[in-house]
C-alpha cells in the first residue's frame, strides 16, 4: 500500500488556503444527514464535537469519564503557543513553524506543521471569546511568557492551569451543543472496537462502564481523539485512565500506527519515591524560566543542598548550552539529567534526581513575584513531598509525559482507514520526534476547531455510503469479538493482579525503551514482553463480573492491549537505526552525546500495519520531504 499524505501542491504558506478551496463542501441542509462519532473529550475531541455540531452535523460523543470535563488535557499546566508576536520580539508564523520542525528533530511533515502555526492565532481568539481567563498585563491585554525550546515569548497561559481553562472552554462549547441536541453525549463509555463496512469506518462498539452492556453505535465517520499511550510505562504523568485501547483496536482493524517509539520524557517531574507509587507528577517546565538546574560536582555528595557551596555545584545545562541554558528542549534536558545521575551525581534518597533551584530568582525578583508566577506549583510540590521549595531546592527527575507517535494520518487527518480520522495526541502528525512545550494544547485545538470541520466535509461530500445500521453483520461480529475477549479476561482467575503485571511491563519499557536505548536492550525487552504477555493470559486475576461497574475489568482490557502494543514500540525502536529527538539509541550519538540522525536512511515516518496476531507487523515508509527548511544538527549551545 502506498502511503499518500495528500499534501496540497504549491508554496507552503498557500497550501492550506488552496486545500480548503479544493475540498468539496457539504450543503448546509445536507449536513444533518450525516452522523459523526467522536471518541474522547479532551481538547481535540471536545473542540471537534462542538465545531462539527455547530456546522449542523449530528454528533455522538463518547468519553470514559463521568463527565467530558475530566479528560487529561485538563492537567496541562504551562501554556499554549501562538504566533501573535504581541511582545514584538520577532515571532511569526514562519518562525513558529520552523521552531516546531526543528524541535521535532526534523521528523515531522512540513505542511502539517505550517498549518498548525497558521491556525495558532485563531485558537487564541476563539478561547478568549469563550471566556478563558488568560493572564493579562496591567493594561488589560494578553500576557506572554517564554517556554522550553524557544528564545521568544509566544506562550499564553492561565496561571499554571492553562490546560484546565482551555479544556473547560471547549467543554462549555460542547455542553452548549448538547443543550441544542446536536451532540448526544455518552459518558462512561469505553470504545472497544472499530467497525468497518466495505472498508469504511462506520461505527464503534463500546462498553457501558456502569451497566457493562456492549453497545453498537453507527455513523458515517469516526473521529478518534483518545490521547496518547504514555501509560504503557505504568508510571507516567498521564492520568490513570489514559490508554492505547481505542487507537490499538483501530490499528488491528487496518489503521497504520506511526512512529510508536517516539515518546517524550519530560525533564521536570517529582522523582519516584516508593514501589507503591501509582503515578508521577509533572512540575510545569515554565519553572525552568526561573529555576536553575544543578547537581553537586562530586559524585556521591550527599550533603543537603544548603551546605554545598556555589563552587562545588555544576549548573550543567547552563554550562553545556550557554545560549539556551535551562530552556533547552525537553529531550535534551531529560537526557542530561539522566547522564548526571548515571555519573553518580544524582541527589535525594534514590540518587535519581537533580536540583531545580529558585534561590537566585527569589533573591532577584522577591518571593512575591515568584509566588505569583508559580505559587500553585510550589504548593503542589510541597503537598506531595512535604518540602517547601521557597526554602530548599526542588528535586526533579524525568518522567514519561507525552507520545509523539500515534495513528498515521494524511493532511486531512484521515488514517489509512477511510472515514477514520485521528486528532490530537492520538495521531502522529505534528511533533516529529520531540514535542516542544506549549505545543500539545495548540495541536489538540487546531485539529478540533480548525482542521477537522473542513476536511471531514471533503470526505463526506466525496463518498458514497452503503446502508450500515447497527444490526449489520460487521457490528454483530465485532460485538462477539469484544464479548469473547472480556470473557477470556474474566476466566483466567490467576494469582497476580492487573496492576502487578502493568508495573512489570512498565519497568521493562522504562529500562529498555525509555530515555536511552540500545539494540541489545531492545531485543531483550521484546523477549521479556512476550514472556510477560504469555503469563498475563495465564495468571491474571480479574475479580467481579462483566455486567457490572467493574474497574478491574476495565484496567485488564487496557493492560492486555498495552502488552501487545509495547512490543510494537520496541519493534519500531529497533527498526529506526538512528537517534532523533526523544528516540536516543546509544549507538548513534555525536561526540558531545547529542542525538545523531541519519537523514540518508531514516528521514521518513515509519507506519506499521497489523498483519495478524503473532505475525511481524508490516513496515511502510512515508518519506519526509523538506523543501523549506534545511536539515541541520540541532544545536542549542
Amino acid at each position, binding site marked *: 500500500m502506498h502511503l499518500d499524505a495528500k499534501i496540497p501542491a504549491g508554496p507552503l504558506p498557500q497550501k492550506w488556503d488552496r486545500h480548503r478551496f479544493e475540498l468539496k463542501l457539504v450543503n448546509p441542509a445536507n449536513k444533518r444527514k450525516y452522523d459523526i462519532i467522536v471518541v474522547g473529550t479532551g481538547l481535540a475531541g471536545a473542540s471537534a464535537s462542538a465545531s462539527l455540531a*455547530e456546522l449542523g452535523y449530528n454528533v455522538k460523543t463518547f468519553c470514559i*469519564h*463521568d*463527565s467530558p*470535563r*475530566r479528560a*487529561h488535557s*485538563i*492537567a496541562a499546566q504551562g501554556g499554549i503557543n501562538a504566533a*501573535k508576536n*504581541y511582545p514584538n520580539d520577532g515571532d511569526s508564523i514562519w518562525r513558529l513553524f520552523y521552531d516546531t520542525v526543528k524541535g521535532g528533530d526534523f521528523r515531522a511533515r512540513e505542511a502539517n506543521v505550517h498549518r498548525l502555526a497558521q491556525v495558532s*492565532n*485563531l485558537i*487564541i*481568539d*476563539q*478561547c*478568549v*471569546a*469563550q*471566556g478563558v*481567563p*488568560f493572564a*493579562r498585563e496591567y493594561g*488589560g*491585554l*494578553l500576557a506572554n511568557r517564554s517556554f522550553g525550546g524557544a528564545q521568544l515569548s509566544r506562550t499564553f497561559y*492561565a*496561571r499554571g*492551569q492553562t490546560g*484546565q*481553562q482551555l479544556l*473547560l472552554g471547549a*467543554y*462549555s*462549547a460542547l*455542553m*452548549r451543543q448538547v*443543550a441544542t441536541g446536536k451532540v448526544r453525549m455518552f*459518558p462512561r463509555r469505553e470504545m472497544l472496537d472499530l467497525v468497518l463496512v466495505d472498508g469504511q469506518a462506520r461505527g464503534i462498539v463500546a462498553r457501558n462502564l*456502569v451497566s457493562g452492556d456492549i453497545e453498537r453505535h453507527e455513523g458515517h465517520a469516526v473521529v478518534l481523539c483518545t490521547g496518547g499511550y504514555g501509560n504503557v510505562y505504568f508510571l507516567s504523568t498521564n*492520568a*490513570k485512565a489514559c490508554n492505547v485501547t481505542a487507537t490499538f483496536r483501530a490499528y488491528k482493524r487496518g489503521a497504520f500506527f506511526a512512529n510508536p517509539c517516539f515518546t517524550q520524557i519530560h525533564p521536570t517531574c517529582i522523582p519516584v519515591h*516508593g514501589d*507503591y507509587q*501509582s*503515578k508521577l*507528577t509533572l512540575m510545569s517546565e515554565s519553572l525552568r524560566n526561573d529555576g536553575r538546574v544543578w547537581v553537586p560536582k562530586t559524585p556521591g555528595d550527599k550533603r543537603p543542598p544548603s551546605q554545598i557551596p556555589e563552587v562545588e555545584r555544576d549548573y550543567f545545562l547552563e554550562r553545556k548550552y550557554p545560549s539556551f541554558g535551562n530552556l533547552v528542549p525537553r529531550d535534551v534536558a531529560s537526557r542530561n539529567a539522566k547522564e548526571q545521575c548515571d555519573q553518580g551525581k544524582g541527589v535525594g534518597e534514590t540518587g535519581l534526581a537533580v536540583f531545580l533551584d529558585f534561590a537566585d530568582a527569589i533573591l532577584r525578583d522577591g518571593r512575591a513575584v515568584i509566588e505569583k508566577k508559580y505559587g500553585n506549583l510550589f504548593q*503542589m510540590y510541597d*503537598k506531595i513531598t*512535604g518540602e517547601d521549595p521557597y526554602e530548599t531546592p526542588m528535586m526533579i527527575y524525568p518522567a514519561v509525559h507525552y507520545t509523539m507517535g500515534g495513528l498515521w494520518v494524511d493532511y486531512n487527518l484521515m488514517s489509512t482507514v477511510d472515514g477514520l480520522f485521528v486528532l490530537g495526541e492520538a495521531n502522529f502528525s505534528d511533533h516529529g520526534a520531540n514535542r516542544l512545550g506549549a505545543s500539545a494544547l495548540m495541536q489538540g485545538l487546531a485539529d478540533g*476547531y*480548525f482542521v477537522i*470541520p473542513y476536511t471531514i466535509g471533503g470526505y463526506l461530500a466525496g463518498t458514497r455510503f452503503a446502508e450500515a445500521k447497527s444490526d449489520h453483520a460487521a457490528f454483530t461480529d465485532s460485538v462477539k469479538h469484544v464479548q469473547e475477549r472480556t470473557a477470556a479476561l474474566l476466566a483466567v482467575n490467576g494469582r497476580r*493482579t492487573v496492576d502487578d503485571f502493568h508495573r512489570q511491563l512498565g519497568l521493562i519499557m522504562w529500562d529498555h525503551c525509555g530515555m536511552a536505548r540500545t539494540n541489545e536492550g531492545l531485543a531483550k525487552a521484546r523477549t521479556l514482553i512476550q514472556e510477560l504477555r504469555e503469563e498475563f493470559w495465564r495468571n491474571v*486475576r480479574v*475479580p467481579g463480573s462483566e455486567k*457490572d*461497574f467493574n*474497574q478491574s475489568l476495565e484496567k485488564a482490557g487496557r493492560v492486555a492491549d498495552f502488552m501487545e502494543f509495547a512490543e510494537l514500540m520496541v519493534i519500531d525502536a529497533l527498526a529506526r537505526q538512528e537517534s532523533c529527538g526523544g528516540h536516543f539509541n546509544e549507538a548513534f550519538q555525536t561526540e558531545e552525546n547529542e542525538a545523531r540522525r541519519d537523514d540518508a536512511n531514516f528521514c521518513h515516518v515509519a507506519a506499521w500495519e497489523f498483519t495478524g496476531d503473532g505475525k511481524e507487523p508490516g513496515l511502510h515508509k512515508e518519506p519526509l520531504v523538506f523543501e523549506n527548511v534545511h536539515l541541520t544538527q540541532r544545536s542549542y549551545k
Partner: protein
Amino acid sequence: MSKSIHLTLKIWRQSGPGDKGRFETYPAKGISTDMSFLEMLDVVNEQLTLEGKEPIAFEHDCREGICGTCGTMVNGRAHGQLQGTTLCQLHMRHFSDGDTLVIEPFRARAFPVIKDLVVDRSALDRIIQAGGYISINTGSAPEANTLPVPQDRAERAMDAAACIGCGACVASCPNASAMLFVSAKVSQLALLPHGRPEAARRAIAMVRTMDACGFGNCSNHRECEKTCPKEISIVNIARLNREYYKAGFTSLEN
C-alpha cells in the same frame, strides 16, 4: 522521612443503586506516610483482589488535583481534613498510627450512588448545559486583544474558573446545595466583558436547572468554602445573587 503506619478503614460498600449499603471494616497495614490517600486505597484493593474479594470502587484519574474525578468523605469531611486539597493530594503523613478512618461517598439527593464510593455527578453537567458558556461558534471570534480586560478582573475571573467540578461543595453543604459550583461559573463569565451579553439569561437558567436537579438552597453555612479543594470563595455566591436579582428585574425571559 517516611515511616510506616497501621490504620483501620470503615468503608461504605454498596453494590449498586438498589442496594441498601453498609460499612465494612478493613485493616490497612504497613502504609508508608509518603503514599497518597488513593495509593493507600490501591494497596487495600490489591490485597482484596488477591484474597478473592471485590475491590472497593472509587473514582480517580489525574491524581494531581485538577481533574475533579476523585473525592470521598473521610471522617465526615469531603476530601479529608486538609484545607485546599483534593483526596488524591492528601498524603498519609497527615494521619497517625492507629487511626480509624470512616470513608463514604459524597452524599446528596442529586448524586445517586453508582457503586461503593462512586456517585453520579452528571447533574453538574446539566447545570453547565443550561448556560455555563458564552455562545460563540468556532471561527467567529474577533482578534483576541480587541477587548482589554483589567488585570484584576481577569484574576478574579480566574479565581472562580479554578473550580474543578468535584462536587465537594455539595457533599459538605447541609442543604446539598450546588451554589458554590454555579456561582463560580456565573462569576467567571460575568466578570469578563465577553460574558456580559448573556449574563442575565445565564444566571436565571443555571439557578433554575440547579433547583430542578434536586440540589438545595444556600443558607450561608459556608461549609462549601471551607471544604473546596480550590478554595473558591463564597464572594462568588454573593455575586451570583446580585446577578440573579439583577436579571430578575431586567431579563425579558423572567
